[in-house]
């Protein structure tokens, strides 16, 4: 264990550090699921804290960086997240949350929020592209929840990112607009260098900087080469209200499930990402997607800000 060394000036003073941020309040009790695991996310490790408090840099304020930062702060460490983007943007579209992930989100106290922002799909249907015939179906819903303990969800990435950000922000320092252009993995005194020239040292550096990770290249010592696989992706969203007006399309909203139309060389996957039940009262403007995350392996994204029907009708 390296000796503690002075930490850069952007961190709060020791006095300020000792004033622990307020405990994240348990969300108001509304329609709680009885099995919602954590009511106090502060206690994810019980009362255990790390015996040696480390200064930790997390590079990247995406879903992975926020999740890592949260767990590290809960263990008692001091975390600074460094993000190149100047703003926390609403990037991306649908995200699949399978039970191995939702279990963690519940443990972190976010279960109740997920039910406000996410859809619990009934299952996944596979259909022949040319006829629409259903050739396969896997039941999720309650069956899956019983088997794995927590639900499968569909959620908009912006909603999931906001949930995690609001959970983590009170416990960490977040530096926006700070691109990391250098990283010295010195075993005694690791550091990152920002575009501004500032050098920040820490006890530990976590790379959570995405599929084109710079930190990964530093660790592996070789370029992070993208391999093209020959596929590209269109993404689009349709307001649920439009689909509800169409007698043939409303079932896709009323009975939320993932549908995959499988065809030669092509595949169309679609699913609702915001709960549309009558109990959903939070006003939500429909998002027109102008942005999307890129895909691993060189898949390319072409985004359509379509708000009309796009299913070849």
């Amino acid at each position, binding site marked *: 264990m390296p000796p503690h060394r002075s930490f850069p000036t952007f961190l709060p003073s020791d006095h300020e550090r000792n004033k622990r941020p307020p405990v994240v309040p348990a969300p108001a009790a509304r329609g709680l699921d009885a099995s919602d695991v954590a009511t106090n996310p502060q206690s994810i490790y019980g009362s255990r804290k790390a015996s040696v408090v480390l200064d930790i840099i997390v590079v990247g304020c995406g879903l992975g960086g926020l999740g890592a930062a949260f767990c590290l702060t809960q263990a008692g460490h001091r975390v600074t997240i460094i993000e190149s983007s100047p703003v926390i943007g609403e990037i991306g579209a649908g995200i699949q949350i399978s039970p191995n992930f939702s279990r963690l989100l519940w443990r972190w106290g976010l279960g109740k929020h997920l039910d406000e922002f996410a859809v619990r799909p009934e299952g996944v249907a596979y259909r022949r592209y040319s006829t*629409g015939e259903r050739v396969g179906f896997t039941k999720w819903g309650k069956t899956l929840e019983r088997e794995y303990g927590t639900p499968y969800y569909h959620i908009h990435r912006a909603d999931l990112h906001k949930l995690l950000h609001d959970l983590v922000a009170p416990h960490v320092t977040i530096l926006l607009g700070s691109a990391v252009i250098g990283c010295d993995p010195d075993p005694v005194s690791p550091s990152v260098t920002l575009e501004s020239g500032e050098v920040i040292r820490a006890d530990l550096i976590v790379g959570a900087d995405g599929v084109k990770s710079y930190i990964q290249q530093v660790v592996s010592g070789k370029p992070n080469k993208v391999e093209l696989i020959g596929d590209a992706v*269109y*993404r689009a969203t349709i307001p649920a209200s439009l689909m509800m007006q169409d007698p043939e399309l409303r079932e896709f909203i009323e009975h939320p499930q993932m549908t995959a139309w499988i*065809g030669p060389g092509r595949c*169309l996957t*679609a699913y609702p990402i915001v709960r549309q039940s009558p109990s959903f009262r939070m006003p939500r403007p429909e998002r027109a997607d102008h942005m999307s995350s*890129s895909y691993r392996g060189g898949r390319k994204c*072409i*985004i359509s800000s379509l708000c009309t029907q*796009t299913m070849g009708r």
Partner: protein
Amino acid sequence: MYNLVLVHPDDGSIESLITEGSADKMRHEFDDFEPR
């Protein structure tokens, strides 16, 4: 909101987070999907 992801063979597209695609081209490529 209903989210669509359409995988198709790459035809030399630009790798981009914000490039707007052609809705007509997308409809054409998936014209034989789901006759309903």
